[in-house]
């Protein structure tokens, strides 16, 4: 994308800025739509209506909220560690924003076509832990501290099954680039990794069950990484009030929220890329059929967003169905269930790939 804008505008600075703006717009849009969707999905699941007054079916509710957040007084308690306290939301938001840089929305819309995209994604999303710990510690509140400690241990633990599943997929596809991974699952939905990948043969059918297991593992563990129910113990409302961001208000609080909803879409995108063909259409491209090739990237954006939001919807669906795990059960789920299954899965996929 940088190359394209560079050739178009002839200026490195402009091209860089525009390329950087695209992920920012994406993360902000993801958060805006995510919050609205969460409200509506939860409301309808609970036989309620949800926001109805700001615009048609409350469609501008998040915008109104955002304006309210901007206007709020930035109240800081006197006992907080000011430097860390102010830095924490920025750091958390940076983590989720930076993750969007490598997510390919289509073969053309991608912040940077990094060769080690998936590696970068895993690494940068760990930045969130530092932010959360800072927030919890600097708030000088016992609930925040407990929340932050829980969060740190949770995110670090759940990175392991995520990484193992990603490893197995990297092993299978042979690339670290998210864009290439998407391209490998091109054309139709039976070429998606969840259905054994593009290569047709005996191995494809053998792989399907293990791919499904891998998908479930990575879906659960990414769910835990973004602190969603049933793994929302860092901010467990009924236990820790609001966890690590108890003491935050106004825009700083909104930044935590933005990054949470941004992250939700980011991890859904990751799952989509790994198992559901990324931006590839499941039914072939309309542009191909009628011979208008410039339409294809737009179709790809549509498919990627559709798939991404579908998985975000499932996250919400889970959230409004399930109770919350306890902190030790969360750990035992990770270490006793997900990691062994992931390892077994890794080995089997490895063997099948070798065959």
């Amino acid at each position, binding site marked *: 994308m940088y190359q394209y804008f560079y050739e178009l505008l002839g200026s490195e600075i402009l091209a860089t800025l525009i390329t950087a703006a695209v992920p920012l717009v994406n993360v902000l849009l993801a958060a805006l739509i995510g919050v609205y969707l969460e409200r509506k999905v939860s409301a*309808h699941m609970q036989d309620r209506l949800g926001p109805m007054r700001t615009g048609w079916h409350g469609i501008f509710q998040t915008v109104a909220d955002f304006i309210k957040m901007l206007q709020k007084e930035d109240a800081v308690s006197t006992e907080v560690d000011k430097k860390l306290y102010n830095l924490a939301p920025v750091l958390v938001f940076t983590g989720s924003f930076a993750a969007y840089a490598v997510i390919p929305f289509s073969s053309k819309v991608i912040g940077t076509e990094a060769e080690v995209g998936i590696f970068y994604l895993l690494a940068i999303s760990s930045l969130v832990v530092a932010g959360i710990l800072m927030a919890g510690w600097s708030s000088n509140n016992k609930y925040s501290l407990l929340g932050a400690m829980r969060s740190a241990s949770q995110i670090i633990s759940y990175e392991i099954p995520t990484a193992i599943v990603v490893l197995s997929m990297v092993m299978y596809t042979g690339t670290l680039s998210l864009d290439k991974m998407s391209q490998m699952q091109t054309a139709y939905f039976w070429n998606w990794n969840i259905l054994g990948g593009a290569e047709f043969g005996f191995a494809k059918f053998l792989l399907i069950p293990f791919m499904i297991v891998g998908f479930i593992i990575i879906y659960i563990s990414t769910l835990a990484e973004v602190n969603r129910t049933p793994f929302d113990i860092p901010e467990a409302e009924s236990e820790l009030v609001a966890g690590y961001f108890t003491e935050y208000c106004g825009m700083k609080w909104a930044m935590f929220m933005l990054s949470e909803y941004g992250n939700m879409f980011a991890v859904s995108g990751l799952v989509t890329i790994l198992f559901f063909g990324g931006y590839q259409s499941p039914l072939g491209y309309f542009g191909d059929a009628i011979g208008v090739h410039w339409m294809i990237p737009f179709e790809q954006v549509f498919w990627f967003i559709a798939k991404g939001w579908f998985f975000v919807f499932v996250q919400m669906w889970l959230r409004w169905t399930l109770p919350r795990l306890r902190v030790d059960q969360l750990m035992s789920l990770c270490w006793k269930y997900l990691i062994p299954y992931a390892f077994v899965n890794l080995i089997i996929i490895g063997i099948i790939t070798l065959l």
Partner: protein
Amino acid sequence: MKQYLKNTWDGIWTVLIGMKITFKHLFTPAVTIQYPDVKVPLPERVRNRLYVNIDDCIGCDQCSRACPVSCIEIETTKAIPGEDLGTTSNGKKKALWVTKFNIDIAKCCYCQLCVFPCPTECIYMTDVYEFAEYERENLVYKFSALTETEAVEKKANFEKFQAEKEAQKAAAAAKPKEEQKPVN
């Protein structure tokens, strides 16, 4: 190991059952309503704001005594003979000026105990439930039909009458024999 696999399976299966239920509810109509625009029809016995039909009130003070939180404040003055206060709608003759009938609705606990003893059924609960105010004083409802000056006037009237009567009585007591004479 068997337990281990069973746990895994239970975990996934019960989650799926739960998801099925919530998914079903995604398409059932909502039970909430858009409150100020849509309102639930209230049943006839509903207990909300108190209302006093002061034309029917005979000032018997029974509601005030029944109230467990003392939110009703009634002051009355006897009418002097010759003043006609009219009758209530069920034919009781009124004999008292109700100079003050205040209900502090902020204190009211909506127990309806004041409604039952009323002999003329003039105090009752209505179906008005939106009566928020910015000032607490505005929640003291003054039902008396008399203005304050009128109330003072009535009180003065009665006191004057009382005084006159006392004077008469005193006069009568002073010279009882002369009083009796014309009778004999």
